[in-house]
């Protein structure tokens, strides 16, 4: 399911036109992005939690060339599905 399919399903479900639905979906995404940028956790009941995790810098070695690289620290978005969603996925 790509973005286009997603929007069409969403618009059918909510009764908005696909243009409106697309616009509002983008708004939701931007709101979530902003919240995550401020290191807030976004928890959606029945779906899951989005949070930002800090990754420490680390050294990795290219096994082929034995070259060592220093990977800088970074912030990563992680998603943890809810138990409800997990169960759904597993067909329970």
């Amino acid at each position, binding site marked *: 399911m790509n973005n286009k399919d997603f929007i069409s399903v969403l618009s059918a479900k909510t009764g908005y036109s696909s243009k409106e639905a697309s616009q509002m*979906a983008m708004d939701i995404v*931007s709101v*979530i992005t902003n919240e995550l*940028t401020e290191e807030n956790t*976004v928890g959606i009941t029945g779906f899951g939690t989005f949070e930002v995790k800090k990754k420490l810098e680390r050294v990795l070695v290219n096994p082929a060339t034995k070259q060592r690289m220093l990977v800088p620290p970074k912030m990563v978005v992680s998603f943890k599905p809810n138990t409800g969603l997990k169960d759904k996925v*597993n067909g329970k």
Partner: protein
Amino acid sequence: MEGKVLLQDLAQSLAAKNGIQRKDAETFVRAFFETISEGILQDKIVKIKGFGTFKMIDVQDRESVNVNTGERIIIPGHSKISFTPDSELKDQVNRPFALFQTVVINEGTSLDDMEKVDGVVPVPSELPEDSVAPIPPTVPTIHQEEESKVDAFADGITDVKKEEQIPVIIKDEPVCGDASFMQEESKVQSEVARQTTAVEHKKHSWWYVGPSMTALLFALLWIVFLTGYFIGSNNWLNFGNIFDKPIQYPQVEIDTVYVEKMIEPDSAYIKGLEDSIRSVIKQESTIKKELPKPQTPQVTQVPAKPVVAEKKSPVVYEIVGQKGVRTIQWGDYLLKIVRQEYGTDDALRYVISYNKFTDPNNLPVGTEVKLPKLRVK
């Protein structure tokens, strides 16, 4: 910061943005996430522009061990949801660290500091360096601590310097065994350590220890002096004062280096040919002023005599005619030519005097060097 945002908050923001009812917005957000979960179940993959990709991944059965009981268990296969953020979201979130880039580490780069930060190597074990003698491992650290503290005190510095000087003396004086010195040193150290542990204020303890340690050091210096004097009295009659020696030694090294650099052979320098020696000594004394001077004032009074005494006596030649001529090439120097022609450095001064070189250290390319025939006297 670090707060939790719920669906209702998202709905509120959405409502404010689009000018719709809060209730409608909430319904929409709910529908948004519902659609995602339905999509995951249906197509196993949902892509949302600017946000990311949700995927359902099947995990196969695998065997594992119960950590508590040690029992082998089989974790049944299941599906899990993975979320890969879009590059847009990724970059946005990682903006504070965006300027960092992955770097290739050169070989030999030490990562000890990093490991310390990670907590992998919490306690560096540097003690073996200091392990002088049967001192318990805690003692050197105390001593070190104190030393660093002493460094902070301006007045204490002289004492520390004395301590530093001793190893130099010992190196120069092979007669006086290192082991005995080490024992002495360890005694001093342990004594210091004992006193530091005994007295609460380390600063005070240092001041009480200071004089006694200085006395010990002086005693050590005297032992070095006496042994050196008695054992070396046969060979080193020229020794006026043993204190000159350790300080003299590095200087002599520098002198020879200097002399070699200036194409003046050390043998000629050592043996005689009074004129050239004097000129060299003159140059030396000018250089000595540039050299970092040790503290003892007697240094300049004894220029190079100990070395003169230590070298074996040279072979004496006389000049009987001329055997040839060499022209100085690029990269040649007089000592090199002499070594090639005569096989000994002793001949150099004869060559210099035979050619009447006023400045043998600086012969231009193309200069003809007359080679005298030498005969052992």
